[in-house]
């Protein structure tokens, strides 16, 4: 073998632990979870063995077969075959196998072996297999397959040591499959019989849990309670933490501002721009983390595919598929990973429908907007001695988005009018106790992403908005606040003509424009605009009180309705374009989402006004 860096590709069935093993080998922190299709694109990393040899490691999406059925499988198939456009064929294939699911995974091993490339089988989750009474004779397995078989436990610190040691040794040779295995299925059966012994064939833990979670009555009830609890928690647990952040931001802002001359532009930039704007978004970090805590635990536990199973019929009726459940649930965090997760969907029609409705799922960037408005307009009351009224309204907004998505999918289904079969064919994984370390890591990553957004795009847009709101300076003898004469004032008043029927004032119109960069920016922009319109400086939490006094209830409800639908996020549109490779899809999404937003807001405001809340 040459001294050049060898390339290793990790392949295997979905959810067998490829990414966990990849993280173990390369020290990466790629996302792992407990459902098929977490990894939908190739990820690369570098590893150095104990002996100092270097490898480029490629983590590939899981595949059931090299005859690819979905876009993510196609990536794996083309790289293994050496036909991928930008990635050369790997020098060594590490085929990862879930020891508890060997019967299924062995077929893929045999398929990969037939490619004739040097390979190693990593027999992963050996600990779980032993616990379940599955005994595997790995020496015999290696002999049958004609390739090295290494036992691994990717979730343990030393679980990949044997694999690393093996890579340090002699380079693996192409497999020497036994000749009498012509048909893959027969071969798999023969090998299974020769190498695996089940010592505990009784009902598994999964069967006992599934009896409840998949029960025709108890199952949907458990799902509904779970979802409702999450939204209650997001609203009620976060309050003390949000108050603490708010106090901290005002303290820092006040201290910095006190060092600057009072009526200078710099003082205004710090108090009106940065504290009012950026600080106003920062307080929502606890809510976002609580939401992610729940999503991560659900992802790790293996419950999500069960929910997809329960909801498949309902989703199919409206023109989606149960498989869309996981991408759509990820869209509650952010539509971008949600849209990317649709790569694991084999049916291109189902995939397109899911991509088009994903932006209707309430992403975490909407939370600041919703929370601000709900806290300002909905009384803090307990309903039925148990539920927080604000939490119920928030839950209602999520439901509104979901119902909207179902309606849109339903219309699309009827426009499309095709009658061929849509396949589900979804694997349900074993349950797993969420690993606290993985959860903590996932939360830390989300917090970093959020803080980066706050410090990056939200900060930049806020500062930019401050400049546009400060210049040009008002003419001599002007009476109103300076912002009325600035670029921002001009844009706001111009847009106001279009949006006045929705009950929006010009300050809201201003906030919506930078809000296209990221939804939370609307909150920071409102903070800046109000702060510069002569209201008390440093208003990160007073913003709510202020709009509570100045806006009609109808205006607030109308803005909430707008945010349920409006595609206020350029990144989402860009990802749609990349994933569908079509501007047409983006334009359809843009037109229908803005159209629905306008109609929903118009109806909300006009009804509210007619009832006397305008």
């Amino acid at each position: 073998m040459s001294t050049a860096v060898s390339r290793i590709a990790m392949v295997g069935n979905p959810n067998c632990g490829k990414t966990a093993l990849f993280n173990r080998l390369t020290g990466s922190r790629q996302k792992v979870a407990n459902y098929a299709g977490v990894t939908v694109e190739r990820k690369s990393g570098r590893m150095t063995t104990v002996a100092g040899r270097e490898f480029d490691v490629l983590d590939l999406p899981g595949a059931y077969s090299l005859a690819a059925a979905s876009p993510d499988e196609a990536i794996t198939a083309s790289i293994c075959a050496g036909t991928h456009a930008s990635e050369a064929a790997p020098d060594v294939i590490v085929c990862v196998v879930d020891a508890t699911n060997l019967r299924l995974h062995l077929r893929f091993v045999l398929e990969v072996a037939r490619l004739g490339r040097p390979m190693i089988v990593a027999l992963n989750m050996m600990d779980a297999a032993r616990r379940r009474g599955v005994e595997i004779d790995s020496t015999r397995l290696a002999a049958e397959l004609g390739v090295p078989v290494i036992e691994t436990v990717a979730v343990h610190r030393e679980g990949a040591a044997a694999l690393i040691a093996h890579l340090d040794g002699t380079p693996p040779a192409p497999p020497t499959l036994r000749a009498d295995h012509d048909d893959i299925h027969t071969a798999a059966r023969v090998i299974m019989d020769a190498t695996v012994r089940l010592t505990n064939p009784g009902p598994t833990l999964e069967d006992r849990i599934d009896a409840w979670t998949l029960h025709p009555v108890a199952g949907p009830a458990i799902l509904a309670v779970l979802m409702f609890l999450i939204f209650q928690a997001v609203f009620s647990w976060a309050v003390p933490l949000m108050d603490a952040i708010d106090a901290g931001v005002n303290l820092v802002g006040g201290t910095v501002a006190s060092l600057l001359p009072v009526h200078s532009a710099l003082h205004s930039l710090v108090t009106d721009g940065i504290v009012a704007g950026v600080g106003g978004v920062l307080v929502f970090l606890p809510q976002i983390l609580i939401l992610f805590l729940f999503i991560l635990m659900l992802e790790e536990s293996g419950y999500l595919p069960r929910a997809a199973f329960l909801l498949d019929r309902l989703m199919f009726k409206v023109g989606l598929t149960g498989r869309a459940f996981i991408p759509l649930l990820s869209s509650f965090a952010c539509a971008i990973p949600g849209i990317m997760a649709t790569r694991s969907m084999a049916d291109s029609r189902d995939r397109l429908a899911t991509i088009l409705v994903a932006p209707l799922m309430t992403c975490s960037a909407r939370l600041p907007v919703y929370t601000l408005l709900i806290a300002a307009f909905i009384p803090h009351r307990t309903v039925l001695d148990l539920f927080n009224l604000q939490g119920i309204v928030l839950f209602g907004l999520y439901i509104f988005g979901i119902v909207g998505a179902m309606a849109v999918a339903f219309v699309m289904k009827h426009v499309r009018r095709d009658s061929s079969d849509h396949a589900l064919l979804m694997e349900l994984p074993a349950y797993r106790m969420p690993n606290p370390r993985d959860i903590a890591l996932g939360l830390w990553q989300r917090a970093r992403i959020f803080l980066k957004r706050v410090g990056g795009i939200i900060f930049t847009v806020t500062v930019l908005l401050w400049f546009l709101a400060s210049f040009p300076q008002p003419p001599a003898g002007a009476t109103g606040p300076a912002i009325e004469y600035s670029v921002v004032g001009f844009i706001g008043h111009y847009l106001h003509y279009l949006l006045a029927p929705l009950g929006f004032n010009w300050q809201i119109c201003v906030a919506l424009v930078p809000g296209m960069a990221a939804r939370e920016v609307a909150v920071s922009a409102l903070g800046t605009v109000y702060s510069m319109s002569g209201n008390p400086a440093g208003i990160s939490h007073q913003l709510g009180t202020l709009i509570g006094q100045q806006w009609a209830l109808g205006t607030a409800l109308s803005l909430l309705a707008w945010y349920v639908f409006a595609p206020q996020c350029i990144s989402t549109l860009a990802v749609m374009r990349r994933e569908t490779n079509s501007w047409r899809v983006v334009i359809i999404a843009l037109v229908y989402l803005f159209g629905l937003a306008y109609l929903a807001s118009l109806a909300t405001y006009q009804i509210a006004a007619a009832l006397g809340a305008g």
Partner: protein
Amino acid sequence: MTICCIGSTSSARYRLRCKWFSIDYPPVQLTELPKNRPARVATIRDEREGDPIAQRLRDLGFIAGERICIVARAPFGGDPLLVRIGGTRFALRRVEAARITVEPDIPEF
């Protein structure tokens, strides 16, 4: 000689068995198999030439002779089905499951 009741949800069927002969039970569609009744896969039928769903089923291990069992039926009309085959659980819609015929195991008495 024993008479075994191996009834399905729609109609009870009986089968004669004695030590000299046995009559093979006719395969039924997977969708007709009662919950938790062990069976073996008999055939996978192509709906049309090169049916991708049938091909996928074979890739996933739905092949003649494999042990199969319905673990659960979804709410709202029993579609999809949760099927266990060779230790793996798959959710299949009824249209997919209709491509599969199975031979139910005879309960031992």
